């Protein structure tokens, strides 16, 4: 479904990724592991189109998307939940979800909101609450829910477990697993190998911008 072919990318004067390749199939949950500065965030942002690939290709469903801007990649089916959640703290929970629905027909909005509320019922209960006042776990659910609003084919979640209680992390991974069962391809990036073994199908390890290991999961 998603293929990253020998991608090099980085920031002006600071190359970060070197010949990184990765593929994720529908229904698969792949973890990208690595310490600080390993290039996990850059990899996900390169797939999203937020960081320009200097060489290599990003292919979605057989079509190269490397030259597309971020909003068109999101529309094509690549979605992203950033590190630190980055929810819109002054907007309500519902408004945060709507913010993730650009391009969706208005008549489908209710349907998509229901889909997210089914997955995370707490968000439905907190629909009118200001997002900034949600707990860390609820904010992470919101960030994931917002990334699900465009009905992506590939969902990327960065540092999902950072700063969260183990029980919340378990709940989030179970939700991601449920999404995989419905055919979604999921990529999570984490610093440490914790629940990944239990919930992921495969994981790759990044070190200084290169893939140093690729291991099968469950």
């Amino acid at each position: 479904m998603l293929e990253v072919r020998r991608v090099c990318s980085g920031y002006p004067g600071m190359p970060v990724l070197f010949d990184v390749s990765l593929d994720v199939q529908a229904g698969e949950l792949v973890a990208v592991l690595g310490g600080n500065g390993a290039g996990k965030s850059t990899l996900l942002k390169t797939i999203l189109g937020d960081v320009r690939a200097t060489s290599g290709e990003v292919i979605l469903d057989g079509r190269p998307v490397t030259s597309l801007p971020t909003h068109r990649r999101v529309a094509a089916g690549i979605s992203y939940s950033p590190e630190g959640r980055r929810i819109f703290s002054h907007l309500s929970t519902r408004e945060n979800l709507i913010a993730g629905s650009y391009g969706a027909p208005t008549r489908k909005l209710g349907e998509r909101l229901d889909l997210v509320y089914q997955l995370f019922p707490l968000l439905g209960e907190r629909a009118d609450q200001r997002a900034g006042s949600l707990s860390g776990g609820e904010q992470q659910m919101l960030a994931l829910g917002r990334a699900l609003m465009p009905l992506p084919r590939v969902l990327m979640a960065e540092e999902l477990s950072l700063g969260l209680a183990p029980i919340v992390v378990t709940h989030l991974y179970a939700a991601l697993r449920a999404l995989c069962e419905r055919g979604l391809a999921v990529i999570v990036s984490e610093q440490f190998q914790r629940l990944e073994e239990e919930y992921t199908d495969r994981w790759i390890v990044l070190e200084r911008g290169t893939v140093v290991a690729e291991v099968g999961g469950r």
Partner: protein
Amino acid sequence: MGFVALQSELVGPALILGIAAAGLYGLFAVPLVLTYQVSRTIGFVQGGITLFGMFLYWRIIGAPISISATGSASAVEQWLAVVVVVAVGAAMGAAYGWTVTGRLANWPRVRLTIYSLGWLLTLAAAVIMLFMTQRAGYRSGLGAPPRVPSVFGPRSFRLAGVAVTSQQIMTVALLGVLMVLLTAVLLHTRVGTFIRAIADDPDAGRWVGIPLNLVGTGVYALAGALSALAGVFIAATIGLSLLGVMVIFLRSLTVAVVGGFMSLPLALAGCLVLGIVEAVFAVDGSLSLPTREVLLMGMFLLVVVLINKVRPLGVIEAGGR
């Protein structure tokens, strides 16, 4: 009379004059707040678009420069000129917005603000070069700046003993309608949600698939149209005065700070307070003009300092965006 102790019979006139002045400040404050939301830079360029719109309107209607502000253009011609000026303002705003929310979006905010200031000065220079020449029919001189006829006609009314022109009434009315409409759009539509999301966190807005460039260009186009319209209104109120526009614009910047450049209601409340206090000073008449200016700006600086004490992160929280 004591220090600005207003007699009761002067309260009404001060209020009326204050509200009328607030209308002009508000016409600037609205575009400033809107453009700040999508680009996090202070939209000095809006002042330039206002100047350009003001002189363009004057040239299109071919109005003779006269203190009495009676022109030869018919009402239909005047309204057509307004449409053209608003369209030109929207195009200028869109062009500027396309660059600052596109190719220049990653520039540091300070550099973008200076870029905006540069465009204000460039447009002011263009106005001087294109319009403020004898060949274009502009004659400078001492005294009150020449006015152009109002699209709402020369009629005036007496309210609380003060003569108020139809132009002033319509300015305040337009601002009221704009306030209601924009608030409704921002709070109750998807487009409004996208704009507020960008205002909250532009990076996250981009990551969730909102095309910042497109939304930003649309907002800048609207702001440009409003700024150009402000030029038409100011021309009919204070006249073709480059300095006058700058003074109103800089004061609007001050009141926009009250709302942290993010809250329309707070910015407009600031306009109202500024207008009324200014009118109280004027009606009272016991203070010289320079003293009034120092007091007025001192008061606003104090308000900004107090806001900073109460809410160090700005008054965004209080804005109820």
